[in-house]
């Protein structure tokens, strides 16, 4: 039993030395209408430490950081920066107070160079040239000091996401930030890139910078932070020293109950091939080849996990199989070829062929956010005779069915009349999953099943996927979360730059080997 109350925890961080905290929040509260996003938040972060903030979606992490960066005004409470009471009405004030922010979605001008982006907003005088020269010099010393190497003259759209993130960090440092806030920084990075980022963060810490890392990945918290705060439902439930806690304890603090971090499953008993893909090729609208001859198959009662860094062709693969994008090659479902370019290359024909699809982007594709849950519960199946009688929809029947379905899948709140946008990410995903699973498809395509989903719901979704496998269905799982792929899959294939780099049985897979393949290094085990 470690310190898991706010008071005990605060002493734990404050006690060792009587230094002045780099940031101290006292009683920060913020409400949006009747929703209390932050309630009486109290935390101290010591200078020269890496402090993690972990919590489920909607726990209030982003609201808190937005208050710190001047996007929102707190209803109550005080902020102390280096011991001085500070008000932060806007982001200019935050920068002036030495706070730098690296957002999850980078805020860079795509067709500007690195140098131009760094200077943007911090130009001095009427002419650009002196500012650029000054920035170039500053950049050079920063790069040497912190292992933050970037080519100052590269154009943003030509460099990788890992580089772009470094530019964001450099932007903050160039503005003299002493406190760096990073919001889910590893979401778009390969494992080696993430390691490099962590090295940079450690360097920054050792030079005396204070770093706040917002994440939902327990492993990162354990790896890199010195202290960690857990948020749940707007409250900071605990602040503990990382060395004195465990992932299980943090997960429990986040969710408020015991959570199974491992997926319980028995070995697969695969049957006949359900999906056979041969030499699949896709060229996108701008002429770039996104899939370059992909072949694989999935048997009944088996989960094939497709690992890879986002943007290497896995989205296109899902869209082709789901009937949203034309392709060349051969795809057979239960031995019958499916139409990849002709009149039957659409979502309706795919569903008729027994393919269900939980898309990667449920908010843009899997759901109509303004439709009520009951309307969404038949989306894609709305031409089924049980759903529509002639031209008319059987609205009452759909509503009743949706209500029962929401009970079964534990969607909260179980009110089918609420619009999809009123549900949390996890509950939205349950609505999609319920719709796609309940008709008993032969093949389930599932992309990023737990992106933006809270821990409690992750557990439930993983159980559903395993149950579907045990019912003898084939499942293609696409995820950028390597942990998820490794926990759920029976076989793992790695995709890089539109090609399958290799395939391994899940029990033989190591994160290191998969990480290398994800970065494009062939390990000689290619299928």
């Amino acid at each position, binding site marked *: 039993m470690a310190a898991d109350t706010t008071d005990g925890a605060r002493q734990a961080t404050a006690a060792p030395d009587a230094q002045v905290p780099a940031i101290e929040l006292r009683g920060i509260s913020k409400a949006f*209408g009747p929703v209390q996003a932050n309630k009486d938040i109290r935390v101290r972060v010591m200078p020269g430490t890496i402090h993690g903030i972990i919590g489920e979606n909607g726990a209030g992490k982003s609201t808190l950081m937005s208050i710190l960066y001047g996007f929102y005004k707190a209803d109550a409470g005080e902020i102390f920066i280096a011991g001085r009471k500070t008000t932060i009405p806007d982001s200019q004030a935050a920068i002036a107070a030495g706070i730098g922010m690296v957002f999850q979605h980078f805020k860079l001008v795509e067709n500007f160079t690195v140098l131009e982006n760094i200077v943007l907003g911090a130009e001095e005088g009427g002419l650009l040239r002196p500012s650029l020269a000054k920035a170039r010099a500053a950049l050079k010393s920063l790069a040497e000091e912190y292992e933050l190497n970037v080519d100052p003259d590269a154009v943003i759209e030509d460099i990788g996401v890992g580089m772009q993130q470094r530019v964001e960090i450099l932007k903050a440092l160039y503005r003299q930030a002493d406190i760096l806030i990073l919001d889910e920084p590893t979401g778009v990075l390969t494992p080696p890139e993430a390691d490099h980022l962590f090295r940079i963060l450690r360097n920054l810490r050792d030079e005396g910078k204070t770093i706040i890392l917002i994440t939902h990945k327990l492993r990162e918290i354990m790896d890199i932070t010195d202290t960690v705060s857990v948020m749940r439902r707007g409250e900071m439930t605990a602040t503990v020293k990382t060395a004195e806690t465990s992932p299980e304890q943090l997960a429990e603090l986040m969710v408020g109950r015991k959570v199974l971090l491992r997926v319980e499953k028995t070995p697969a008993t695969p049957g006949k091939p359900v999906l056979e893909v041969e030499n699949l090729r896709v060229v996108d609208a701008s002429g770039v080849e996104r899939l370059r001859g992909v072949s694989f198959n999935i048997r009944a009662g088996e989960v094939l996990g497709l690992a890879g860094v986002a943007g290497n062709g896995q989205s296109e693969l899902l869209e082709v199989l789901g009937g949203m994008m034309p392709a060349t090659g051969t795809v057979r479902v239960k031995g019958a070829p499916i139409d990849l370019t002709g009149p039957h290359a659409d979502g309706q024909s795919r569903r008729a062929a027994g393919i269900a699809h939980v898309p990667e982007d449920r908010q843009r594709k899997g759901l109509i956010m303004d439709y009520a849950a009951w309307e969404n519960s038949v989306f894609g199946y*709305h031409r089924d005779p049980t759903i529509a009688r002639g*031209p008319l929809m059987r609205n009452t029947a759909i509503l009743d069915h949706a209500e029962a379905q929401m009970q079964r899948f534990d969607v909260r709140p179980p009110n089918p009349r609420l619009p999809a946008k009123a549900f949390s990410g996890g509950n939205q995903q349950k609505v999609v999953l319920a719709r796609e699973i309940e008709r008993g498809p032969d093949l389930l395509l599932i992309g990023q099943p737990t992106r933006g989903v809270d821990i409690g719901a992750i557990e439930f979704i993983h159980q559903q996927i395993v149950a579907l496998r045990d019912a003898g269905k084939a499942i293609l799982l696409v995820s950028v979360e390597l942990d998820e792929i490794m926990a759920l899959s029976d076989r793992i294939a790695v995709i890089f730059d539109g090609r399958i780099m290799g395939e391994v049985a899940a029990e033989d897979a190591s994160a290191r080997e998969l990480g290398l393949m994800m970065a494009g290094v062939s390990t000689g085990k290619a299928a």
Partner: protein
Amino acid sequence: MERMPKWADVVLIPLISLLLAAAISGLVILAIGEDPVNALNLMVKGALGSTYGWGYTLYYATNFMFTGLAVAVAFHARLFNIGGEGQAMLGGLGVALVCLYLPWPHWSLALIASTVGAALFGAAWAFLPAILQAKRGSHIVITTIMFNFIAAAFLNWLLVGPLKPRGGMDPSTARFPEATNLPSLHDILAPLGIEFSRAAPANVSFLVGILACVLVWVLIWRTRLGYEIRAFGHSEPAARYAGISPTKITVITMLISGGLAGMMAINNVMGEAERLVLNATEGAGFIGIAVALMGRSHPFGVFLAAILFGFLYQGGAELALWTSIPRELIIVIQALVILFTGALDNMVRIPLEKLFMALRRRGA
């Protein structure tokens, strides 16, 4: 989380916007040296004070109902159909051809055939912009605007050429045969013992307009097609995911929209003029945009907004008749209504939302 009750969203916001528009209109009237109270009186009396006034108000309202529904249906698929004017003109051609070149024993049969003819011609005029949008990505706003000009020029040519009867002195077709003349509200209400002005142009088309409102409601909220149209309007990637063809929905929606706009012709061409004249639509296609905006693309909202604009039209004509206020001022008033209800929606909405949130917090 609802920010405010639904009734406030549906009733209060348009009402406040309307009052703001009226207040500024009053200032404009004051500025040109007339009495705004008197002007309002005149408008109300002229448009609603007699069955004659009502007859005109409802006649205009019928036009706006059809063009408003046309814009509303397209808007559910996030298509902005600016071509109501041209589609209604072509609808007029459809009505004229049906009435002039086919023999009709009774007005009711003629009405059914004319409605079909008007809808077909209107839909045909919307088809090309629709297919250009769906297949080529040519923006429908641009193409439908251009098609308005083509329609006007085309009808010009027809009415001074092929369709003009021998010896005709004005650019119009011959009179439609007696058997195609529609009963006016006077004819319909007289058997029920209700006295209605014989001179007013409101006719049985008004009832067809109401029927159209009901049918559009069923289409949008009760049918599979409506479900697909709305889904496509909310998110094209999601529609593609569900196997809804964007091309098909774009074309079908525009055909319905164009058909509705075309159907306006049974009111102005068949019901009122009883022949096809030059510029028979008188801008009703454009008013339809304002009507749909104000009615929030809901058929019942469109119905109410159409009546309001019918009132503004008729009341404005009365103003021009009895005061030195020029007829153009009514366009100013209409523009203010559109500005406040459409473009400046958030100006009213945001303070109102804050007010409701504050009230709720105090209540909680």
